[in-house]
């Protein structure tokens, strides 16, 4: 059709291109912005919901834990190891040359002042997330007397520091404080 092709032909001239095209470009870009902003709800709905974010503190009573013993608590749906170290364990942890460690930290860095015997760590191997052995009585505590992850053979020492195996970091110490001498509040 004649007028039709003429209309298309007009688009060819430089003046015509600018005049006619800006409105299409504006409309398409606006549609693009609108489409892209739809991603905000679609992506953020997968992030933790309000109830998950709120459920993030745990209280643990540590008074009943004897030296050498450990208990497993739950923090954010993950295991939390609470261990009271013996004098020997503290000594062996402090004897290690810190600079020789893969993730250099002293026992003092990993405990609270006045409570150096309370080692509170996440029970999650920093390699790929298995739960290490050693918290329960009679479990394999690895070559360094702390924790041992059976999945890929990571050994942690009495301060929960990585000493051997594939894990890159020490067992994570969560944020916590002593609300009294015997109660800790994690998170």
């Amino acid at each position, binding site marked *: 059709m004649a007028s039709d092709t*003429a*209309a*298309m032909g007009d688009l060819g001239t430089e003046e015509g291109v600018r005049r006619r095209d800006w*409105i299409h470009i*504006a409309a398409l870009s606006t549609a693009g912005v609108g489409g892209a902003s739809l991603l905000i709800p679609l992506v953020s709905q997968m992030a933790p919901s309000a109830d998950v974010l709120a459920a993030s503190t745990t209280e643990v009573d540590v008074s009943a834990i004897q030296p050498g013993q450990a208990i497993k608590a739950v923090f954010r749906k993950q295991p939390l190891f609470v261990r009271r170290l013996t004098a020997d364990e503290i000594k062996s942890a402090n004897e290690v040359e810190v600079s020789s460690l893969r993730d250099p930290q002293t026992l003092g860095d990993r405990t609270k002042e006045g409570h150096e015997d309370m080692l509170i760590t996440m029970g999650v191997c920093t390699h790929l997330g298995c739960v290490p052995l050693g918290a329960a009585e009679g479990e394999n505590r690895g070559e360094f007397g702390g924790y041992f992850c059976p999945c890929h053979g990571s050994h942690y020492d009495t301060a929960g520091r990585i000493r051997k195996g594939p894990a890159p970091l020490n067992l994570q110490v969560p944020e916590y404080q002593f609300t009294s001498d015997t109660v800790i509040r994690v998170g």
Partner: protein
Amino acid sequence: MTIRLGGIIAGLAIAAVLVLWSLVPGAYNYIFGPPAEKQASYAFYEHGEGPEGGFAFDGPFGKWDVAQLQRGYQVYKEVCSACHSLKFVAFRNLSQLGYTEAEVDAEAATWTVPGIDPNTGETTTRPGEPTDYFPMPFPNAIAAAAANNNAIPPDLSLMTKARHDGSNYVYDLLTGYGEADPEKAAKLGFETPAGLYFNKHFPNVNIAMAPPLVIDGQVTYADGTEATVPQMAKDVAAFLTWTAEPSMVQRKQTGWFVLGFLLFATALAFLSYKQVWAGMKPKKK
């Protein structure tokens, strides 16, 4: 042709069955049969109009009146919560009512929630924490029915969405208690059964819930607002609107933003459409 013939026969048959066996007897009965009996209670029902002046959250620009929500929460806590649960609402949600984190912690601790003794594993109770949900006043439905003359007090979390025009409904219901007009009642032989209460804004007029708000000053508002019965009813209706949909105000505000964008985008789309078709000759007619 066969299909058309079959269609005509089927169509006439369906219409004949409908008219002769359903419509004619039904219409005959409707015209000559005894008139349908209306329940006497319908004569007493009055449609409520909600509180005077409406609510702050009404309309597309509505916003929460935070002070009112706090007062409504107080009414719920001191009056309603004796029988009605609020199971989809957590104490942490109260931070939306303008309370600080510390105030929410303190408020949660004033409630007693079921817990488990960490040493023995037995069920016990403990003070509430922000992550806890409002506790159930009765351990189960049977206990709730037994304690309330066989009527289970419904959960209130969604009440204003579970009734038509729910915010006004709650207000009307709470202010609708009273006596049936004795003259009219005597004429119609109407009587509120024992154990039920007359409420002109309840659909069948006789409600199992005893009047919850009975005297002015039943609660003492911290902000000094005079606690008349209509005031308390309005406040708690607002609070229950919030519990039913805490995201309502956010929803409306997002809506204006989205609408503004869409109007702009559609205007551009219209110009673009006209531009594309500009080369075509206009329609005749």
